């Protein structure tokens, strides 16, 4: 079977051939799941959010022009889905996500209970979750397979250069949190 590009498939969905969304789902479900999982560390919530992305892609299929990258369009939708989820569940979000690193680190006892200092991956995972969501997001996106910084710029609504600077600074912040957690 000749493989259609993502853009061609999505244009078919737009013209009413909804079956093609199944092929797009098969191609991208793992990447989307990985994006959400790295953002919230919750597998079942991530599965729901992946579903929401495809529901929204169907709902707003008329906005897809076929110009530019399909991945960028899809991840912009994913980002909005993630943002809307936390906006709607504001109370839960405020309880589990704290906006500044300093504040989070004050809550040291509960952090210490949940992690094993000898386990680097576990510490790094914890450090990722302590990063502010917008910084975590740029790192998760830049680590996705086949994702280019030009696309990340489109997703975040900034230039390619700005996306690189954001990723770099997020990395440095992650490093700082990681070292602080390790020395505790």
């Amino acid at each position, binding site marked *: *079977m000749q493989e259609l590009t993502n853009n061609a498939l999505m244009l078919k969905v737009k013209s*009413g*051939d*909804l*079956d*093609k*969304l*199944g*092929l797009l*789902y*098969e191609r991208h*479900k*793992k990447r989307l*799941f*990985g994006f959400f*999982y*790295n953002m919230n560390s919750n*597998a079942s919530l*991530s*599965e729901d959010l*992946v*579903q929401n992305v*495809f*529901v929204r892609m*169907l709902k707003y299929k008329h906005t897809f022009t076929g110009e530019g990258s399909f991945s960028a369009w899809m991840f912009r939708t994913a980002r909005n889905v993630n943002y809307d989820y936390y906006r709607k569940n504001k109370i839960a979000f405020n309880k589990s996500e704290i906006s500044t690193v300093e504040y989070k680190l004050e809550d040291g006892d509960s952090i210490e209970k949940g992690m094993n200092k000898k386990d*680097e*991956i576990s510490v*790094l*995972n914890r450090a*990722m979750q302590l990063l502010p969501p917008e910084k975590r997001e740029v*790192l998760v996106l*830049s*680590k996705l397979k086949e994702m*280019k*910084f030009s696309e990340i710029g489109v997703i975040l609504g900034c230039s390619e*250069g700005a996306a*690189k*600077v954001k*990723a*770099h*600074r997020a*990395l*440095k912040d*992650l*490093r700082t949190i*990681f070292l602080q957690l390790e020395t505790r």
Partner: protein
Amino acid sequence: MEQEKFEIWMMEYLSGDLDESRKQEFENYLKNSSKHREEFETVAETWNQIDALEVPEPSKMMDASFFDMLNSEIEKKENKKSNWFVNLKSFFDPIQTPQLAFGMLLLAIGLGIGYFLNSSPFEQNIQETVVSNSTNETEEVREQLVLTLLEQPSANKRLQAVNEAAKLNKANQRIIEALFFTLNKDPNINVRLVAIESLARYVETPEVRMGLVKSIALQDSPLVQIALADLMVKLQEKTSIESMEKLLEKPDINNTVKQKLEQSINQII
């Protein structure tokens, strides 16, 4: 060098965006700048560590709920299409005057003749090609759907898959193999029975006939055994006698099945 420019350059290096010469240039730059080299080493270490973060596999439930959602959207769309004629009829309902109706009829006939005269054989060819292309694509998507649904844990989904397979105009090797796998291994009897019906459409192919014959001896459900025996009688497939006799030799064979098989063997001979 400006800090921001260096940050951009470093990210390009780490993400593999640089070509070989720019990469070399970056490495040479680091050799001469101890401050930036130190910064690079710490940041690069964290960048590489991120790869070790594990992401679990999404569950089968995610696939099931996605395809449920997609199927219900497709159904909704098809229902909308079928309502189109009803809507059109209700649109014309208020027209009571016969003259107006007659006028509209004449207009429709006029348009029809105009369209007929305008469509050249070349255009018809194009239309036929477009139709055949879209039929091919529908077939491909249906094949994908069948293969995906056959792997679902829900028996209903697998039933749906086998029903979808029956709608294919031509089945390829992958579909036939998937149907045989279902016939011989599926835990649900209903799914296996429907798989027999689907495969019966391709009995002109010798491999399918052979597969069905072999499957007789593999079945443990009386209903499936009887359905296969009936099919063999219908096809007058002599090679199936051996498989049926093998099944008859099994000590735990159901009495009804035993009678049915003996009767079937006599009918084929």
